[in-house]
């Protein structure tokens, strides 16, 4: 479903010259699976996910989403994904209903099927109360719900969540994780990036630990524990990051 091969991303910095944000990342993510990208700030998670959502172009390597190439078929890639990130905000001057409807129409849904789908999504995400609330008047949790509704309204086969729980209180974060799990259970391929160990442990079927643009280790939680002989994910993470820093 998602196939990333030797993805490299460089950007130019006036003082430092070329800066490497991704140094050749490769991974697979399958349908019905939550693939976690776990890493500290600046590890390259957001860059990788922005490339998958076609907002950024890779400097080298390739990535395919739902069989489409992110560089040469970005329109088709964007139709196949739902992207929720801390950087994808909601419109202040649109109500929840208007915003989800706008994106549903952009995804090509006809008015009547879209209305039915929106009713379902709003009920699923318990958003009926905020249907007519303007974005500017919503709490952080409400905004995140609208973002998820916007990302799933066209029922995409791939969902990408980039640090989606940042800034949410425990209750809302828990509800969001439940929603992500439900999406996975519908057979969707989910990529979930986080720097919270607990979230990765509870949610992800496979985890890639990233640091400074590289994937240090990748596998299911059990595989990682066995490979690195460490049951505690947090300890395992610190050990990997320390080794990488020392190297």
């Amino acid at each position, binding site marked *: 479903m998602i196939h990333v091969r030797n993805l490299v991303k460089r950007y130019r910095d006036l003082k430092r010259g070329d800066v490497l944000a991704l140094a050749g990342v490769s991974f697979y993510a399958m349908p019905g699976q939550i693939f976690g990208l776990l890493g500290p700030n600046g590890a390259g998670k957001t860059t990788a996910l922005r490339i998958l959502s076609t907002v950024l172009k890779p400097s080298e390597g390739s990535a395919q989403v739902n069989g489409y190439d992110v560089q040469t078929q970005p329109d088709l890639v964007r139709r196949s994904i739902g992207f929720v990130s801390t950087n994808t905000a909601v419109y202040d001057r*649109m109500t929840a209903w208007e915003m989800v409807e706008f994106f549903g129409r*952009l995804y090509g849904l006809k008015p009547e099927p879209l209305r039915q789908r929106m009713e379902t999504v709003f009920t699923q995400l318990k958003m009926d109360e905020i249907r007519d609330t303007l974005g500017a008047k919503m709490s952080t949790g409400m905004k995140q719900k609208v973002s998820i509704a916007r990302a799933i309204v066209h029922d995409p086969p791939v969902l990408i969540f980039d640090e989606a729980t940042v800034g949410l209180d425990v209750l809302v974060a828990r509800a969001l994780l439940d929603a992500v799990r439900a999406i996975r259970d519908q057979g969707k391929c989910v990529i979930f990036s986080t720097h919270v160990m607990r979230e990765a442990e509870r949610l992800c079927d496979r985890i890639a630990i990233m640091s400074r643009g590289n994937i240090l280790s990748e596998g299911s939680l059990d595989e990682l524990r066995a490979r690195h002989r460490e049951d505690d994910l947090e300890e395992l993470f610190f050990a990997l990051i320390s080794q990488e820093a020392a190297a």
Partner: protein
Amino acid sequence: MNWGNVKLIFIRELRDQLRDRRTIFTVAVLPILLYPLLGMSFFQVLQFMKQHPSRVLVMGVESLPPSPPLIEYEKPGAPRIPLELFDSADEQKLIQLEVRPLPNGPVAFAAAKRIARAEIDAEAFDLVMVFPPDFAEQLAKARQAAVAGVKAAVTFPQPYLCYNTAKEKSDFAERRISKVFERWSESRRNESLIAQDVAPESVRLLQVQRADVAKPEQRKARLWSKILPFVLLIWALTGAFYPAVDLCAGEKERGTLETLLSSPAGRKEIVGGKLLAIMVFSSVTSLLNLTSMGVTGSLIASRLADLGDEGPFALGPPSLAAMAWLLLAVVPISAMFSAAALAVAALARSSKEGQYYLMPLLMICMPLMIIPLLPAAEIDLGGALIPVTGMMLLLRTLMEGRYAEALLYALPVLGVTAGCCWMCVRWAVDQFNNESVLFRESEQFDMRSWLKSVLRDRKDTPTVSLALMCGVLLLIIHFFANLMSEPPTSWQGFVTSTLVSQLAFIATPALLMTIMLTRNPVATLSLRPPRPIALLAVAGLAIAVHPVAMILKQAVLTLYEPNDAMAETLTQMSRLIEQAPLGWLLLAFAVMPALCEELAFRGFILSGLRHSGHKWGAIITTAALFGVIHGMLQQSLIAAALGVILGFVAVQTGSIVACMVFHIMHNSLMLLVTRYLPQRQDEWWANRVARFEPGGEFHYQVWVVAAGGLATILILMYLRQLPWKLTEEEGRQRALESQARQYHAA
């Protein structure tokens, strides 16, 4: 492009802006309130406005002749200038007069002048007028001499006027007193003529009978055609800018741009939707301002007419036809400014930064809007080709009812406006594709680091920015070189200046930039040898294009006739060219331009611009720069057309050697044919090829042009099917376009 998405985005942006109080205030509330408030203030201020009297000191009144009087006394100690010397009693009251005798002594006049200067410096008076001690006697003598017909020059005595033009009041005083003095002199002259039994009217030999045939509607059209287009343009720009900043920089700031970018809407669709929304606000702002200004202006005009004011605004509101033309012009004007504002606003990271960009945009547009307001500014080809200026001049011409003239220049104006819109939209789309613009973070600018990064990060071939920089640099160098050089007077000077200009001002900057700013000069300048067959085809193309180019040249010169100064320059140039030996001529006007201009334009600039990913965009932009550098407008148009062919040849053959061959052959043919064909007009074959006119001019026969045109098309088709090398960006763009086609087909 999915127009459904464009419509969705347009409606969303429109609704979004309509829910923004700031936008509504700027677009709707401000114009509705502004002009009535301004009108109200105008009448309020009018009540308090009064003309200030001028304080005038007259010294030496005792020297004045008794009749006609220049100074009279209303009552003792209250001197004034007689009412006959003014238009009205109100004007008379505007001179506060004080009189003094001249100081005693042999140098009374010189002493009085010193006093006058001191009084003006001390600002005690606005003007001091000093009459010499023997003014009346000298005047009488001069008159007698003139009457007696003395042949020696007769000198009439002159009073001394001291004032200070740096002070507004003093300047006014001078104008008022000069008018009075002229009338007084006139009445003195009349008096002396009457004394000799001559009627003053009989000596007015040259009297001009004036007949202003302008109808009030025409005068009205002339007045409004200067004001309203300016108002329209200013508000179209302002009305476009604020929504553009909110829809680009504002969205970046609020984090919603990435939401939209990750949706299926393509970049062109996003730009299209936003552009339409901005256009709506730009049009509505300018129309509301015009309407509000028109209504308020009409009321003020009618009020002023009631008050007896005969000023220009008393002519009344603009005609319906003028308003209709304004309404029609709103669309292209708003489109142009909206596209420019969108492209500029896309650069900004935040709304605050976006606001900073308004001033440079205004600074660029303002001179272009001011040119048509200058006295005697009329539409011509030069003006028509200047963005904004051309549109304003065309609008003026239409509003004044000069439709035939407007029709002649409508195409260039609309072409330039459409070209500007296209470039701005292209630029905006590129900005939305440019990660460094979309996601750039604030970085402290440091000149040393920047220079280092330019050298350190240089690529094999120049970037788009470097190519544009090279083009602009060449234009600036060319402009200053032309300003500083003297026009040549001999063929040697002409040839030398052309050679120096090509080598120093075109080839050298391009070569220096290639060496310093790129890593691969061969790739940058496309110095690879072309395939022999392709080279042969290009040589054939140069011959085939020649008759077509001649027709184009004649058409351009007929349609847009050069002005007198330009025609004189061209004649001078032709004379010098006729005197020059053929070898030097070919070197200066065929070989050297081909080598130097191709290195710069099809070499550095085109290879850089191709990194935009748009082959034709790069070719046309290069051709436009190539045209502009030719200076003379008529020549620029022809050069730009040939530049398109040269750019195409460069891309298809992958070599500027082919372009150089085409350029040398084309310029040589022009020189040789123009010089030698008229000399052979008596030979049998010459008349089969061309029609000759007296004076050495000739036109190719239709069959020659048709054959040339056909051969040109065939050779271009051959070149088109040659395998050409895409840049990385062109390859990506092609893949994106084929993806879009596949998607829409599916």
